[in-house]
């Protein structure tokens, strides 16, 4: 299942920060990780991924650094910063509340939809 792009757009930064909070990754790895960990539910368009990474870097939530990958090739690894961690924690809290709110609104309907 693929999400509506606008719906995904709001959560994409949180998802990226969450993935990176578990360890540094380069662009390709990150897109793979998002798809795998969301069982292909979340799939960030490649045209969105790199602008998103650069935007997060501009906000100093993540930082990029060229490093030698296991393959021996140079890759730009992204890691979360302390500012990014704080932001992630805050946004996760908001997401929790959003989920709770959504549950209240839809009640059992959410499961019935499936």
């Amino acid at each position, binding site marked *: 299942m693929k999400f509506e792009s606008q719906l995904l757009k709001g959560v994409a930064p949180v998802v990226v920060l969450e993935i990176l909070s578990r360890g540094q990754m380069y662009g*390709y*790895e990150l897109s793979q990780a998002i798809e795998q960990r969301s069982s292909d539910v979340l799939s960030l368009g490649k045209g969105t991924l790199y*602008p998103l990474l650069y935007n997060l870097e501009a906000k100093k939530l993540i930082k990029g650094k060229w490093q030698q990958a296991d393959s021996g*090739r*140079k*890759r*730009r690894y992204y890691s979360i910063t302390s500012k990014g961690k704080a932001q992630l924690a805050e946004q996760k809290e908001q997401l929790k509340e959003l989920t709770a709110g959504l549950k209240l609104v839809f009640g059992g309907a959410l499961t019935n939809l499936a």
Partner: protein
Amino acid sequence: MKKKGKDKLFENLPACAAEFIKLVIKKMRYRKKVRVDVMAELAAHFEDELKDCANDQEKEQKARKLIEDFGDVKLLGILLRRAKKRCRPVWRTVVARTFQTIGALILCFTLYCIYISLGKPTIAVNYVEEAARLARPVADDNLNAAPIYQKAFDAYKEPPLVEYETETGLLDVIKDKDWVAELTEEELALLKQWLSDNADTIEFFKQAAERPYCWWKREAKDNFVLSVLMPELASLRNITKMMVWQSKLKAHEGYIEEAFDDLLTCYRVGRHLKGTRLLVEQLVGMAIQALSTKNALVILNNKEVDSQLLKNLQIRFEKLMAEDTYIINYETERFYALDFMQRCYTNNGRGSGHMIPGELKQIGGLVGEVEVKENTVFDYGRFLVMSIASANRCEMSRVFEKIYSTAEEWATKTPWQLHEENVDFEMGFANWSFLKKARYWPVTLLAPSMGRLNEIAYRQKAQVEALITVLAIIRFKQSTGNYPESLDNLVVTGYLKQLPMDPFSDKPLIYKRTEDNFTLYSVGLNFIDDGGELGKNDRGNPTDSEGDAVFWPVIN
């Protein structure tokens, strides 16, 4: 990135992927270093995505799918540029914005320069003709002295050279000598010869001086008032100097009446240059009259003159004085400013307009000390800066109008009255800020020196009054055997119609009897009675800014 590095980056990628990445980077339009970084990252992404492909065909297919996934090239380029722009440090943003602003300003400035450079003046009035019209009275041509003056100029022979090596003429050698007795025999012989050679000139000069009016046909390059040629002024001055020496020579030889006739001729010549004329003409006219009156006093100082002749002279000078004006006229002078503005500014029809740099070369000779050559980049640049700095035509007109109307008002007041009113002759210009001075720079170029002009005009008036008074005092002495006790005595006894007024005190000229002579003086430019002492500067040379203006006794 060098071509070799680029090729290495794309060596494992299908052509379509390499092409796509290059296109994205091209659309990104950002700093090279950043673009290289992004290109390497995108290439790495493709490389990782395609690493498990078994063959080139599969690579090609997968690459195309990925390209599709990346989306529109142009949009991706824009998004990448925007994101990378946000990544740059604040200082870099500041520098970039600064340069952008400077660039925008340079562009605006360039456009403005082009705009003002393309301006064209509207020449609506021929001010040379206007000046000639104002100078010409409603009178018949045969009352005009100018054609006869021209005959005098044509007949004039330059003073003989005394020092051939330095080409110094007789007039230069004897300029500091006041009286014929001070000349050497050689100088006297040369003077007589020179006067003899100029007999025709002198005759024409006398004839011209008798005519009531004088107006000249004016010529000016492009009819620009600032370029008006006035060759007659130098000629009139030279012939006057010659006449003055002829007068003194005649007096020395005993022909007193003829001597004074010559001086009266000079005085009348000076009158021809006054009234509604340019300031330079009026100043030369006053200088000629000053030569006449000063040398009349020199003759009186050196020669005994009989009472009847003195009386006759007094009447003639009184008559000339009554007919003359001692008020500076600015009516024509303002044409300088008006013509300057119509030629060097555009006219938008509402009285406003901007200065045109290309037209300023017309006044090049008056701008700065550097000689203006035609169309040099340096001069044009200078004129461009001056034009940009200048106030618009409307504002400039207002300032000039204020200057000239103030000048006309002040011209009717004596230096003493202006001193009492504590007027600022610079009209506050000295206190203007640098920017204001730059905006109104033509004012410093064209505005007359009103205070100085006022002093010159009224000093000339005082000198004529002093001459008339001296004539009356000598007559009184010849009749009574004594000098009068006061100037009032002269009026009461009918030797003088009225007391001579000192424009520098608005009181009568100061008269004092001495042991066997008398003193007559004005308090002068410092407005203080220094007891009849001439002003001297630090080097001991006479100066008119200090001390009194002493008319009698005559001091060289």
